[in-house]
């Protein structure tokens, strides 16, 4: 078990009160696993991802434990987390395009960052160059400023940089959404390659695009309104999803080969609840076609089949 999360709860502090962005998330990740984290915007997937590395100004740690390789991450302690960051747990942020200091040459920035983390830059240098080759970046990029790189190149540079110290866990947050399909494909394939080469042990790939995940992830976890809905191996999610939300979500995705004139797809009616004052029980209740009275209680996230976790009363009932 490389990552083990129990009851992780993180709220957002806002004027009107606390936004329950992540509620009692418990799941684990095995070594070498690439887990896709999917869900609509505002479902808490980014909150989950970033809380594992850096709670930003308005995020409040409420409860829960995070064990990485058996060690507990003090995610509530900004300073205490420092030693884990980069080395144990690393991040490719959503904003990879602007993640590098615009006024420093990239190599110099990497150098300064590495030294600041008490590593020997010269020692790392050969590995850095190998990895640049791997992502097909010329070594000259180190002498360039970020602005001189194209979007795809910056994306790759950040990928290399984030994984340079071989972290145990890598969080890749919406890294493909700004890219063209062709580049998207290359970047995603590279992530897998990084895993294969053991630059990182396990990975959480956050995206709203399930079809991307279907290509690269070993497992997919679906979130809805701050709660975990379902987690299962990729194939299972795509073909045999059990949570009504997952099912609806998958069925609403247009695919090449489906035409409006031949088959009309449908979205999920309604909209997600406000997390400022979330409904009690299953949060998908209002939009769920199969909801019943039991759903006023929070469904636990249970392993119904092997590696297949679901949080749905109806499913529990049927399974039982």
């Amino acid at each position, binding site marked *: 078990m490389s990552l083990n999360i129990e009851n992780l709860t993180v709220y957002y502090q806002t004027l009107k009160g606390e936004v329950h962005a992540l509620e009692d998330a418990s799941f684990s990740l095995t070594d070498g696993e690439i887990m896709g984290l999917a869900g609509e915007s505002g479902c808490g997937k980014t909150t989950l991802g970033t809380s594992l590395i850096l709670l930003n100004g308005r995020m409040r740690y409420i409860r829960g434990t995070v064990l990485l390789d058996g060690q507990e991450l003090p995610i509530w302690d900004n300073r205490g*987390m420092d030693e884990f960051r980069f080395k144990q747990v690393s991040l490719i942020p959503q*904003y990879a395009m602007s993640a590098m200091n615009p*006024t420093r040459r990239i190599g110099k920035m990497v150098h300064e960052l590495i030294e600041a983390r008490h590593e020997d830059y010269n020692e790392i240098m050969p590995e850095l160059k190998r990895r640049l080759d791997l992502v097909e970046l010329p070594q000259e990029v180190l002498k360039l400023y970020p602005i001189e790189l194209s979007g795809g190149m910056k994306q790759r540079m950040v990928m290399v940089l984030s994984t340079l110290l071989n972290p145990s866990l890598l969080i890749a947050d919406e890294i493909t959404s700004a890219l063209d399909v062709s580049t998207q494909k290359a970047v995603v394939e590279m992530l897998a390659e990084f895993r294969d080469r053991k630059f990182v042990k396990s990975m959480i790939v956050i995206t709203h695009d399930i079809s991307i995940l279907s290509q690269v992830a070993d497992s997919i976890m679906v979130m809805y309104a701050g709660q975990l809905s379902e987690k299962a191996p990729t194939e299972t999610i795509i073909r045999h999803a059990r949570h009504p939300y997952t099912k609806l979500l998958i069925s609403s995705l247009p695919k090449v080969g489906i035409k409006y004139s031949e088959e009309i797809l449908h979205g999920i009616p309604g909209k997600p609840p406000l997390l400022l004052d979330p409904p009690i029980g299953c949060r998908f209740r209002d939009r769920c076609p199969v909801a019943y009275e039991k759903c006023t209680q929070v469904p636990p996230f249970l392993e119904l089949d092997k590696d297949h976790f679901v949080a749905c009363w109806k499913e529990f009932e049927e399974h039982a």
Partner: protein
Amino acid sequence: MRRYFLRKILIYLLTFFVAVTIDWMIPRFMPGDPVMNMLSKAGSMHAEAQEVMYGYLTSSFGLDLPVWQQYVNFWKALFHGDLGISILQFPKPVIDVIKSALPYDLLLLIPSILLSYYAGNKFGAYAARSKRMDNTLLPIGYILTATPYMWLGILLGWVFAIILNIFPISGAYSYALKPALSWTFIKSVLEHWFLPFMSLFIVQFGGWAIGMRNMIIYELEADYAHYLEALGAPRKLIRRYAYNNAQLPQLSGLALKLGVIVAGAMSTEIVFSYPGIGYLILMAIQNSDYYLLQGCFLFIIIGVLLANFIIDIVFVLVDPRTRLGMQGGAS
């Protein structure tokens, strides 16, 4: 790169042209008669001779050519470094008058600008570290930058020159000295320089401190700062980056502020009777010395343009973004 500078230079040239044209217009549209003013100070009781004198002087400043010709001549003379004769300091050429004032401006302006820029930025960055410091140190900055230069100057003069009597109150060096490259003289120059320098320094210092504080707060919220934080980079490194980046808008702010600083220097010079160009301008206005006014204005323009140009170059050196922008150009 070359194109960028070509464009810049073109704008500077255009600015220079417009400014010089305005400059040329000054004496032609000013009210009052400078020669008359010059003579009116004579207070002589022999008016007949004055009339003859008046004729003499007027013709020697002659403005009897057609306007366009005067304009062309003005440019011609300008390229020969001829700015005419000062009325106030007749018969000294304007260029000489300005030449003797210029070193004082350099002495006052450049150190005060550079040092206040440096110290103010440091101070602002320091204040931005925590809310507590921000709230205690920053109001000082606001008060300083809102202080009228001359008011502060007079207060400083009063405290340090009159009450404590440790600094002289006026002039550029002791009246007991003649200019010479000796230690006594340099010491005297520094003593006289200190108070006007301080009043310029203090006000500018406040401005820079605030500017830096505002900028660095933005920078600390920038994506790269968050990314570095996520990679566990020490705060020191992040602050250093933020500081360096925040300096860029500060630097372009410096270019914009030069005009204001020049104004501040003028009033400071007046307060401390510091014989720079600002003081000359006041004298020139009070005495309708067109030619001197023209000359001073021209020098200020050249100075500000030059400073702007230097800032532009420095900017290109420190900010890679401008360099890239140059290649793309504006669409």
